[in-house]
């Protein structure tokens, strides 16, 4: 008995130590940038494995160097990127989320990519990669969220795919009344989903105010957006103090319970399908864009996506540029879109995405036109660090605190952070 206990304690210690290493290890491990290799940081879920290995094989054949791809988790990525950019030769090419690129460009850590300026980039994506007409990154892909639903549960409940918010609520009510399933899984702090609802009202997280920016949550738009979020969230069993990554909704929540619908990105939907199949089940997912207030206007969605940048301190800037040029060339960009089955918004105007009917990609592309971006200013990245004031506000509002008072506090924090460089 005691031996078992000792063994269990030992195992746990080991796991904890290992997972702790896993967190840090990735940042120091590669140390690439010598003459015969370059190091590329890509985010979890960004690049299909086949595409990466084919691309790197082609690159290695052409230039005779090894490409070390290190996959990074989104959680805590800002610390790692900051550290990597401050060190010599840690990383050559790196993927940076489109809301954070401007912030890093301002630190002087990203190389000027003027040579790439004349490519036919997607204009909307380009705005997140440029500061004062200097290009610090190139667009790689765009993505936005759609509603993923379990077809068989919806059929059992007699729920219809909605085209307006009211129909959406009716469908969720039908599922609640007619099945045992959770009508929608919506964690309390999915703040980009909330951002879409605020954008539906014509608002945003922050607005320009004189020379600087100011938080804009204590507004009519902010409150109306939060009201609708709360209405949806009341159909979920999720706690109010977690976001979609804790627990990971796609792999930890959806496959382990009867979830009738959830709001997610393409890589999350793919992850959920894989997790369900691993358990011996079969995913029966349908997809629809987030409905708007009326049938002729889809709901706003956050235009997520990533850019690729070269570190100013890259060990091998020429090869880094060459890799970037190849990865974002028309040929490889098209292959990237194809490898994602059209599930991404292409970065170049000469690349086309032709998603099949009924797929995630089709639903996503439909709402790509009604995208919104958070304020593209250098200080926005500060707002997104934990503890994130928007997330704290959402939990308070969902727990029944007075919205306006909590929103004023959040606005004060946003204003303080967003005007910091």
């Amino acid at each position, binding site marked *: 008995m005691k031996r078992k206990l000792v063994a269990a304690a030992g195992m746990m210690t080991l796991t904890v130590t290992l997972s702790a290493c896993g967190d840090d290890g990735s940042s120091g491990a590669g140390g690439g940038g010598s003459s015969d290799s370059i190091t590329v940081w890509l985010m979890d879920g960004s690049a299909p494995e086949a595409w990466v290995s084919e691309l790197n094989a082609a690159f290695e054949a052409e230039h005779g160097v090894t490409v070390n791809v290190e996959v990074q988790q989104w959680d805590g990525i800002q*610390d790692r990127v900051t550290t990597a950019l401050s060190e010599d030769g840690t990383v050559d090419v790196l993927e940076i989320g489109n809301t954070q690129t401007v912030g890093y460009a301002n*630190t002087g850590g990203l190389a000027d990519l003027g040579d790439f300026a004349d490519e036919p980039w997607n204009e909307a994506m380009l705005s997140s990669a440029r500061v004062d007409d200097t290009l610090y990154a190139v667009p790689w892909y765009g993505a936005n969220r759609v509603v993923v639903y379990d077809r068989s549960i919806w059929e059992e409940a007699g729920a219809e795919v909605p085209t307006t918010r009211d129909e959406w609520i009716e469908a969720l009510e039908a599922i609640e009344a007619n099945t045992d399933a959770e009508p929608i899984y919506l964690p309390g702090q999915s703040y980009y989903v909330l951002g879409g609802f605020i954008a539906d009202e014509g608002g945003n997280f922050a607005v320009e105010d004189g020379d600087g920016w100011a938080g804009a949550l204590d507004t009519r738009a902010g409150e109306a957006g939060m009201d609708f979020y709360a209405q949806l969230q009341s159909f979920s069993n999720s*706690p109010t103090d977690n976001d979609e990554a804790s627990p990971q909704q796609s792999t930890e929540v959806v496959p382990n319970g009867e979830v009738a619908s959830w709001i997610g990105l393409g890589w999350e939907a793919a992850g959920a399908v894989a997790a369900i199949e691993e358990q011996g089940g079969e995913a029966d997912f349908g997809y629809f864009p987030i409905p708007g207030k009326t049938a002729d206007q889809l709901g706003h969605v956050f235009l997520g996506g990533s850019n690729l940048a070269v570190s100013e301190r890259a060990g091998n800037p020429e090869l880094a540029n060459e890799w970037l040029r190849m990865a974002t060339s028309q040929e490889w960009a098209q292959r990237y879109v194809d490898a994602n089955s059209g599930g991404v918004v292409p970065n170049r105007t000469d690349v086309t995405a032709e998603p099949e009917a009924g797929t995630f990609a089709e639903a996503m592309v439909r709402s790509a036109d009604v995208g919104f971006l958070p304020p593209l200013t250098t200080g926005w990245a500060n707002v997104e660090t934990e503890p994130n004031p928007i997330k704290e506000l959402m939990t308070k509002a969902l727990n029944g605190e007075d919205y306006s008072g909590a929103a004023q506090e959040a606005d004060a924090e946003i204003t303080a952070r967003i005007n*910091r*460089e």
Partner: protein
Amino acid sequence: MTVDIEQAPPAPPRGTPPGGRVGRAAGGWRPSARWVPYLLIAPAVLAMLAVLGYALVRNLLISFQAFGRRQLISRTTEWTGLDNYRAVLENDRFWDSLVRTVLFMAANVVLIMLIGTLVGLLLNQLGRRMRLVLSISLVAAWAMPVIASTTVFRWLFDTQFGVANWAMRGLGFDGYEQHNWFGSGTSTLVIVTVLIVWASVPFVALNLYAGLTTIGGEIYEAARMDGASGWRVFWSIVAPIMRPFFLITTFLEIIWVFKAFVQIYALNGGGPDRESETLPVMAYIEGMGQNQYGTGAAISVLTLLILLVAMSFYFRLILRQERENETA
């Protein structure tokens, strides 16, 4: 809170003559021997200077700079004098955290000393077999790595799957269906307190027991003969003899709890809404979390100063005691 047993000097029983005098009388005085103690201590001092001293000086320098993400990446130095300190001292959050830290520390130290003393006395009274069982459980709690025990506690009090909620329901309490134990700062800190007290009691208890074994049985016997109650024996015999032990242990616990970071941060990240933030956690969140390294450094320097002031009382006590010993 990483602590090494070596850090805690064993409580010296009073009557022993200071070690130096014995050595000198036995070995005789040789000039070359003068440097031996310094040579022996040199590696430890050098290692400490390299690891701690350097970091301390750097931290102090950074606290006088505007040091954020841009300065880190572009490697520029911008001296701003006392700006960081001014900003921190004008920040209500700092004062809230300070009050919270002091209250949290006080509650923890009182509980640790109280329970630790009781368990130590119990160890002294138990028979051999039960004492062994208790000692092993104490050592196990003491030896448990902090992150491991924190992870276990996180799950014990989990909203959906936690044992705590299950137990409360089983005992017939209402409202523990999905009760969120980490829903408020106070509730979070109470759980941290349970965790820290659980992990710190063994140190006090085992050391007290070690000290108690040096008290001869005849003193107790004599006291009993005079009709002293257990209460009286403790206050008139154990407490005075063990006074140096209680002093040093209390002050060590004050230091350890004051700078407790992992337990608080790993349990709930100082949340919800920064309501369980103590000074070390605040320094980390402002500094590392939000890339304001200058501000974080200023907070940690202030934390250090506060601790030094608290510790000065301890040093004064020690000095006074040594003077008393010399005159006695």
